[in-house]
């Protein structure tokens, strides 16, 4: 946990110092380009690596009633049997975190007075779902808002999003809700890893690292916007240089900008080699993206080995006498066999 915090802090400090001694173009130009190439290449490579292995069996988790008889109501969202149904199921998973929404907490009472013994009680527990949704959507909106730096003139949808996001009209520059909520969500996600003993036990360095990294990004972004300040006209000119592949000098931009950019770049580089690939992975998940029609449509396994089993003739050979004794019909009658033998 501390390791990851240190690494993130180190990245930020290096970027700060680097920018301060005039290496702005290294952290502002070279690093982002490298990061984007690594990110795009890495994620594509990861998807290809997954795709190189087949899906030998159709193993959807049936999350409700299957489609069977006419009078039995199918759970269309959780047990879809058509491609369209699967698209709906995936939509729920990707955009609304359907599975996480099911979450319940199981609590074991050692001695329940009502029960006269141990008792297991289940509580609906939607906090993880709420904050996970909040985190992902805020992250997306914050990213989307940044298009005001990538595009000129700024498209109406971005302005609209900014208007909604800043509707409270607090302060100047106006406070964006999503930025604040993103911070809250990240802190919740870090907090539950530290406080919940189970999650704490399973958490690894690579669980804390991206959280701290994103925390760093959010904090540096908020700091830049509201507190430390930089000349954003210069920043936009600089960023537009980047997206036009025509980078300009980084002079006149506060180091906090490079800290922010450097942390984002780190995240992009780290992304394809980490659990963050769940972004692409969810689409590949065979327990979710296959229709629950496995008795109606045959799924083909490309490496299906040849059949190898005890065939009926072999079985009959093993038990012919006993089978004859039990008056079971035989493919090769006992008499014929004994006759053959005696004939020889």
């Amino acid at each position, binding site marked *: 946990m501390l390791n990851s915090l240190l690494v993130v802090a180190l990245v930020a400090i290096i970027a700060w110092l680097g920018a301060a001694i005039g290496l702005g173009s290294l952290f502002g130009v070279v690093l982002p380009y490298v990061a984007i190439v690594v990110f795009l290449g890495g994620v594509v490579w990861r998807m290809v690596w997954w795709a190189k292995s*087949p899906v030998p069996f159709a193993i959807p988790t049936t999350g409700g009633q299957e489609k069977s008889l006419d009078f039995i109501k199918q759970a269309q969202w959780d047990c879809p049997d058509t491609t369209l149904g699967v698209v709906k199921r995936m939509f729920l998973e990707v955009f609304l975190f359907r599975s996480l929404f099911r979450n319940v907490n199981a609590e074991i009472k050692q001695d329940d007075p009502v029960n006269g013994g141990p008792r297991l009680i*289940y509580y609906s527990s939607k906090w993880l779902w709420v904050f996970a949704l909040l985190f992902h959507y805020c992250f997306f909106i914050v990213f989307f808002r940044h298009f005001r730096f990538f595009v000129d003139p700024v498209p109406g949808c971005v302005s609209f999003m900014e208007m909604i996001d800043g509707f409270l009209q607090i302060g100047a520059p106006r406070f964006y809700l999503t930025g604040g909520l993103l911070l809250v969500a990240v802190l919740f996600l870090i907090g539950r890893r530290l406080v919940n003993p189970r999650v704490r036990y399973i958490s690894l360095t690579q669980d804390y690292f991206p959280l701290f990294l994103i925390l760093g990004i959010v904090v540096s972004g908020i700091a830049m916007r509201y507190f430390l300040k930089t000349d954003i006209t210069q920043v936009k000119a600089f960023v537009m240089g980047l997206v036009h592949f025509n980078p300009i000098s980084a002079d006149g931009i506060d180091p906090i900008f490079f800290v922010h950019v450097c942390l984002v770049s780190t995240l992009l580089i780290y992304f394809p080699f980490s659990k963050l*690939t769940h972004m692409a992975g969810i689409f590949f998940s065979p327990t979710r993206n296959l229709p629950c029609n496995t*008795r109606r449509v045959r799924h083909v396994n490309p490496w299906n*080995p040849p059949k190898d089993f005890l065939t009926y003739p072999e079985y009959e050979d093993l*038990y012919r006498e006993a089978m004859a004794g039990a008056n079971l019909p035989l493919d090769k009658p006992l008499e014929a066999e004994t006759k053959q033998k005696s004939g020889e």
Partner: protein
Amino acid sequence: MAKLPTPQELVANRPAFPAEAWLETKPKFVPGSYCYPAKKETMEALHMPHPHEWDPAADDWQLPENWEKILCDAFEDRLKKHRSLKLFMDICVRCGACADKCQFFLGTNDPKNMPVLRAELLRSLYRRDYSMLGKILGKKIGARSWDYQTVKELFFYAYQCTECRRCSLFCPYGIDTAEITAIVRELLHEVGLGLHWIMDPVKNCSYTGNHLGIKPHSYVEIVEMLADDCEDIVGVRPKTPFNERGHEILFICPSGDVFADPGIYTFMGYLILFNELDLDYTLSTYASEGGNFGSFVSFNMAKKLNAKMYEEAQRLGCKWILGGECGHMWRVINQYMDTYNGPTPSNMTTPVSPYTGTVFKNAASTKMVHIAEFEADLIRHNKLKLDPSRNDDLICTWHDSCNPARGMGLLDEPRYVLKHVVNHFYEMPENTIREQTFCCGAGSGLNTEEIMELRMRSGMPRGNALRYVQQKYGVNRMACCCAIDRATLPPLADYWAPGVTISGLTELVANALVCKGEHKRTVNLRQEDLPHLDEEEPEGNEGE
């Protein structure tokens, strides 16, 4: 078998999380914590790799000399074969949503029984070989090398998972621990590690057609005996067609139903129902096993044991197969059978109910229908004369077995049937039924006596839910459609909710079924007195 602690003790003595990180802790192989290993002869007979004698409690498991290479190569091979494995190794974010969804974790409080850590045991090995950072940073980021202890740990926890898929339902990415457990078990088999309780049935099934190793003549004998019992109870002797050609339907059920109490009552139920319908069907001594312990071993072993079904349907010229009440059998049939051994033989056609004309379009390719679907359809079309009051001594609840629930979606068909054959039906709490059902805690080959305490632990959530409805509604019967359940739930109920008995669905159907030409029924299939006997008697006398 050691004496079991009381439920209170069992819950109270769950240890706290260890102070050390999970990479530092190792499982202790004490009697009762592990299942007995497969015998060398069994493994040899099945041509399994590296058959050998070994003892889980011993330090040395007698692995082959190059075991590490074998395992690494096998792991690589599985990664190439299963996209799911690659994906599940890569995308887990360790959010912990799966943690308290596992009945083994709830019952043992062993952190490595949280599905996420169970997978992490393999993921840590994956990290070393398939990620740059893992190679460099090692333990700091949860990567580790294969060593003897790791193999033991994988074995320990791969056999504390019933592949029930409850965690996969709650996982935001659908990571399926059943898939991981199945593959870990495959890997362990590469170095000759397997369970007696699994491999023995597999061997039996390979050579005799069923897990119990019942030879053809004995199989016939047992079924005839059950048919005799049916005659005593109903007054009509059901037909028992064996290995006959030219019937429309081949009926296959788990062999546990032929052999073990209370499964036999379900089997008698099949016989009575089919006889009443005058169903054009045959049983087979060759394909006399619906269950598939091969699916607890490896995908190829599951395929091997499953192959007999289509082979026999082809030989006997049956148009479709009717499947009995079994859990993992239906996971295999629903999601694997067609892929393993399809396409179906040319003589088979899309199943059509001979009585209602219902076309089972949902089984168009596999051509295999679940008996609960078949019965629900019959009842819907009023083809069965039912007297549910014969089950009035029973206050029922329904246990969704894990495989039909989350690997098939068979939820409402059995309920539909049940509600028509019993008058008293109560659901268990909503987080313990339907797709969220808790399994019996001893599926996937873990229903052995030597781990009884572990089974009671993993069965706690189910037992707890059962106790709840027992106290609230007076439930005294839990019905289910799984042969393993019928074997594992009775001790579980005795422990957690004493007084509740277990039965299959068709047993209750046959109790309620009014047959043509039956004599006055005085006992149910268990030869217990029927309820309302006193009240009905004068009425009956007058009527007849």
